[in-house]
């Protein structure tokens, strides 16, 4: 019996989990930090619930932005980094010329 082609395997069915590469990077960072013992996944989850809870309008809901904010809050709370560092470096990166990361 030929089943392939009739029905896609589970791995392929369903939509893509990440909309953009940065979302997968942020997910990977959070899991890597957790696996390194910087925090427990429950601690992260509690912070994520708080971030999601700040969103009063469904239109403002953007899961991975809440995810990112939860991660940076938790890292700052644990004094692994300060958000000021993030602001400064983000501004530097924003000022890079277009096409800085690839050559033509």
């Amino acid at each position, binding site marked *: *019996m*030929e*089943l*392939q082609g*009739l*029905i896609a*395997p*589970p*791995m392929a*069915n*369903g*939509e893509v*989990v990440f*909309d*953009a*590469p*940065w*979302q*997968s*990077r*942020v*997910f*990977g*960072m959070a*899991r*890597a*930090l957790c*696996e*390194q013992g*910087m925090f427990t*996944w*429950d601690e992260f*989850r509690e912070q*994520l*619930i708080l971030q*999601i809870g700040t*969103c009063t309008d*469904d239109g403002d*809901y953007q*899961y*991975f*932005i809440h995810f*990112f904010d939860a*991660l*940076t809050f938790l*890292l700052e709370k644990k004094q*692994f*980094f300060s958000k000021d*560092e*993030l602001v400064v*470096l*983000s501004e*530097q*990166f*924003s000022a890079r010329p*277009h096409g800085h*990361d*690839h050559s033509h």
Partner: protein
Amino acid sequence: MSDESPQAIRAEALESILIEKGLITAEAVDDIITRYSERVGPMNGARLVARAWADPQFKKQLLTDATSIVESFGFEGGQVEKLVVVENTEKVHNAVVCTLCSCYPWAVLGLPPKWYKDPAYRSRIVMEPRQLLAEMGVGLGSNVEIQIWDSSAEIRYMVLPMRPPGTQNLKEEQLAELVTRDSMIGVEVLGGVEVPGELS
């Protein structure tokens, strides 16, 4: 072409800072992304479902102590502290949600789909499950009871969907190919199999 949205830049800056501080490596992040995109996913849950359809004794174990079963399969992915598998029948339809955030049994289903994390799904599946399921393509008769399971940090749920008709002669591996992620969340009912030459 690189993604230069403000959020992408902030994520890139965060990764640079964490690497600079020696808290993570880019390789560790790469490894995790590969793990969750290639080795952790609904194919693991599908194996459990197919085995349960084929083996009544296994099904019994799965419904009574799924946590031990998952441990014995050695799936990667974590986040299954306690897994409870609930069975769909002609009389009861189960569906899974996390009303607070996005808890999900990664080891058996991989990462949650976008809509699972959506406020609309998270509230409507509780408030008006029959209506929402119908909109998602699961029309249930009024005689079918709906049970919604709210995942938490402690307990994750997975649905054991009903075995589709016309699959009596399939082997376990073939059955596993029929099982979809959405059917294991409870927002899809698996249809029958079209067997060329055997349908009237």
